[in-house]
């Protein structure tokens, strides 16, 4: 469970990127964080996986106060999460396999188990046949699927996705979101930041609305649209 209590974040005075945001996301939830550009969606995500520290407030994930974790132990938090960015952040000089395996190398997994997990993750995103290709040889949609595979290969509890379909056409976007839904169905909490209303309308279960850093609304839809 992710609990945010009165989160404030200021980059530069006098504007607040986040202003008194409090929300709760339960294990297994599939939720969207939406709002116009500059509303604080990415900042909220960065605060959750502690890339930045809030100016004020508390974040508790599964009973652990995230802000009290020492810097040299942040890696423990990050290993429970899979993070997907709009700009992919792939290593283009390494093969697809190595890009996905990086999440497993850092935990010191053996080669045999690593190969098995990477293959399974790529099979889930339907890219196992391109395991030895370079990312530059893949389409945008395929590259994003590689990123998703990297995010899930470690079987994280939480997936955080920041505009994962921002660079993709509607059909691909739909395909990617379906993947997230499938991952969520297996028990992973999925949090997606997007301003794509069509996707929200189709896939949304729990939706948080942000505007100028403030949480302006929350909606819970029946999870019938799968």
């Amino acid at each position, binding site marked *: 469970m992710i609990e945010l209590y009165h989160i404030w974040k200021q980059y530069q005075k006098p504007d607040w990127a986040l202003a008194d945001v409090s929300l709760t996301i339960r294990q297994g939830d599939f939720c969207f964080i939406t709002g116009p550009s500059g509303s604080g969606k990415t900042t909220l995500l960065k605060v959750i996986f502690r890339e930045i520290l809030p100016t004020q407030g508390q974040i508790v994930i599964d009973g652990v106060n995230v802000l009290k974790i020492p810097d040299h132990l942040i*890696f423990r938090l*990050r290993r429970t999460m899979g993070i997907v960015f709009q700009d992919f952040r792939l290593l283009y000089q390494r093969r697809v396999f190595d890009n996905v395996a*990086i999440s497993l190398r*850092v935990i010191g997994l053996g080669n045999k188990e690593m190969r098995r997990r990477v293959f399974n993750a790529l099979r889930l995103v339907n890219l196992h046949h391109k395991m030895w290709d370079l990312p530059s040889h893949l389409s945008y949609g395929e590259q994003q699927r590689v990123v998703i595979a990297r995010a899930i290969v470690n079987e994280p509890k939480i997936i955080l996705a920041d505009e994962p379909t921002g660079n993709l056409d509607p059909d691909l976007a739909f395909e990617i979101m379906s993947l997230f839904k499938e991952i969520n169905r297996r028990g992973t909490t999925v949090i997606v930041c997007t301003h794509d209303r069509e996707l929200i309308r189709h896939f949304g279960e729990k939706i948080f609305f942000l505007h100028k850093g403030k949480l302006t609304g929350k909606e819970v839809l029946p999870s019938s649209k799968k």
Partner: protein
Amino acid sequence: MGIFISLSNNLQHLATELVHNLAIVVFMDKNLSPQEKEAFEAKVKQSPLITKIDYVSPEEAAARLAKNFPDLEPVLRDLGTNPFPPSFEITVQERYSRSSLVDRFLESLRHEPKVRDIQFNRDWVEKVEAFGRVVRAIGVFLASILILASLLIVSNVIRLSVIARQDEIGILRLVGATNNFIRFPFLIEGTVLGILGSGVALGFLWLIIKLFPLYVGYSLGAFQQLFQLRSLNLSQALSLMVGGGIIGLLGSFSSLSRFLKI
């Protein structure tokens, strides 16, 4: 640094050789008769401080000069007469080399008839040792500057390496790599750079040691030994390599602390 160690080795060797062959040279009157020669030798041999005594005739002295300083041979010929007096080379036992007993012995020799001058190369030993200390001090000073420079160079090389791999480091942090996991390859890189650098420097030093005598030539004669570079022994060479590795490691560590903040 290797050159200074080599020079220092040479001076140390020279000093050791001088100590081992600490000699008093007693210059006698040109008109020394064979009986007087025998009497002097017998007297000196009685002293427990002495290991041996050798007589050097004027002809022998002239031959030595011609051999050690071939350029001066024509000068000797032009003189017409042999300027060298007869002399005795008296070797002192090493354990007495710095003892005041030697000074008293020298004083007693001065009062001997037909003794004209006495030279004792203990002064040379002290001069060589002092010179060696100066060389070592300069070496330490220069080594300190070079170590600092090496640290900065390695630190900047690692910094460039970090910049080149920034994307990868960012991803490693995202997927939960520990600081040590990120740090380790750069520390290895810095250490290897340091060891390789030391190895290359030792290789150059070896070349210099081999080529320097050819450069200096043989005109220095007896002084050639003073300028002869001696190779580093195995422990010195290994120490330099290990030292290089440590400097590389420290430079790398410093760079990571400053730029990666880990």
